[in-house]
């Protein structure tokens, strides 16, 4: 399926409306959950960093820790995990239901290339929107981190910001975006594969959906390590 998708990528132009729709579904509709997760990830990172470093190191270091961990690891990974559940499960359930109700066959019978129509737009939308969501999550997590640091750990906002500025490197953000692209491709591909080739009616759709979430999460953590090893 992936080989077919890549070799027929030119067909995706014909289905650009589907790509836009999927970008809205994957991107726009996921903003609330990414904001929620980002805010709490940032806050808990700040509070726990402050707890671990208490009296040992200048408190500005909390800002450094938050920005580094959020950009490099926490938001890319947490966003991917959350979206493996939300986006991955949705894609598998949608395509799986279409398969078992013969809607995929109906598309083919209407002379559509069902992979280009159903799979390619979802994967392209995932590759494009995951990095955007991660950037969005990064911003919210950093703001959340500052909020947690100031309100719970009683670290002055100026100290947090100065620590954040001193350790910020553009590469860290770029690395997170690269992760987002890879995770977006992985999660949507796994989800589309499970959904497109589902067998066995509604029970099969349920199993495929669970399989997507499990496999996508496992693949993401392995790729997380591989990317860190190769790129850092």
């Amino acid at each position, binding site marked *: 399926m992936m080989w077919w998708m890549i070799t027929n990528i030119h067909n995706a132009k014909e289905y650009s409306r589907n790509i836009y729709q999927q970008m809205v579904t994957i991107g726009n509709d996921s903003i609330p959950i990414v904001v929620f997760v980002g805010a709490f990830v940032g806050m808990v990172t700040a509070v726990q960093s402050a707890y671990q470093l208490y009296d040992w190191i200048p408190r500005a270091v909390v800002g450094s820790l938050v920005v580094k961990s959020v950009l490099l690891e926490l938001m890319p990974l947490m966003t991917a995990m959350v979206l493996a559940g939300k986006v991955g499960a949705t894609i598998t359930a949608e395509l799986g239901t*279409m398969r078992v109700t*013969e809607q995929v066959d109906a*598309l083919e*019978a*209407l*002379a559509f290339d069902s992979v280009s129509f159903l799979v390619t737009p979802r994967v392209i939308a995932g590759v494009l929107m995951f990095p955007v969501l991660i950037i969005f999550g990064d911003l919210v997590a950093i703001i959340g981190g500052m909020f947690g640091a100031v309100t719970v750990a009683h670290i002055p906002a100026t100290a947090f910001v100065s620590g954040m500025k001193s350790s910020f490197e553009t590469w860290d953000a770029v690395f997170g975006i690269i992760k987002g692209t890879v995770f977006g491709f992985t999660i949507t591909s796994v989800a589309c594969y499970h959904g497109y080739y589902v067998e066995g009616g509604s029970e099969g759709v349920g199993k495929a959906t669970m399989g997507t979430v499990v496999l996508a999460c496992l693949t993401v953590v392995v790729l997380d390590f591989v990317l860190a090893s190769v790129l850092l």
Partner: protein
Amino acid sequence: MIRIQNIWKKFGDNPVHRGITFDVLDKETTVVLGRSGGGKSVLLKLIIGLLKPDSGSIEVDGKDVTKMSYKELRALRFKFGFLFQGAALFDSMTVGENISLALRRHTGWKEKQIGESIRYALHIVGLDNVEHLMPSSLSGGMKKRVGLARAIALTPRYILYDEPTTGLDMETADGINLLINEMRTILGITSIVVTHDIHSAFVVGDRFAVIENGITLMTGTRDEIQNSQHEEVRKYISSSLKAQEGRRP
């Protein structure tokens, strides 16, 4: 003309077809009769290349479908309309969008012309002003009609009907049978109907192929089938008629 010759197909260790052979003549309705689970729906999918047989050939207008590339198959499918057993309407689209999807993709027509085609296709199947409805709000009979409207929107040469009356009440089923006959008489479409509904089969069929245990027991006209001396065909017809009489009011 469609010529199906010695088709063999199995899924895993389960043989579905073990040498299916029959011809579908132009501008006729050929009914494939057989028990549920006998591979009738699979046969329709083989005809338009959604599945590939293990061996045998299926010729559509002289070209062997089993040897076609994917590009050739897509071109072939313009000749076909397919009414799926559950209608297989795209549930995220309205009725109008279901019908216009292929028109927008394949014709390059303007919106006005597409709109007219949608209304015409729906009018033919006896539905008016339902373009804006979602499939979930339609009854089973209406879904089949919309599925048929979608199938005829691209003015196909052949229509494949997969159990068109299954799950419908008698009155609605008779309405669908009437439509199938109209497709042939008004639009001159060649049809293949697979069904286990013997009443519907005798209403719409010009020619019949009876399938049992993956092989073609007999082919022939309505009279030939009804007066067949083939023991298994007689048994199948009489048991199906009895079962159906019990269900009809």
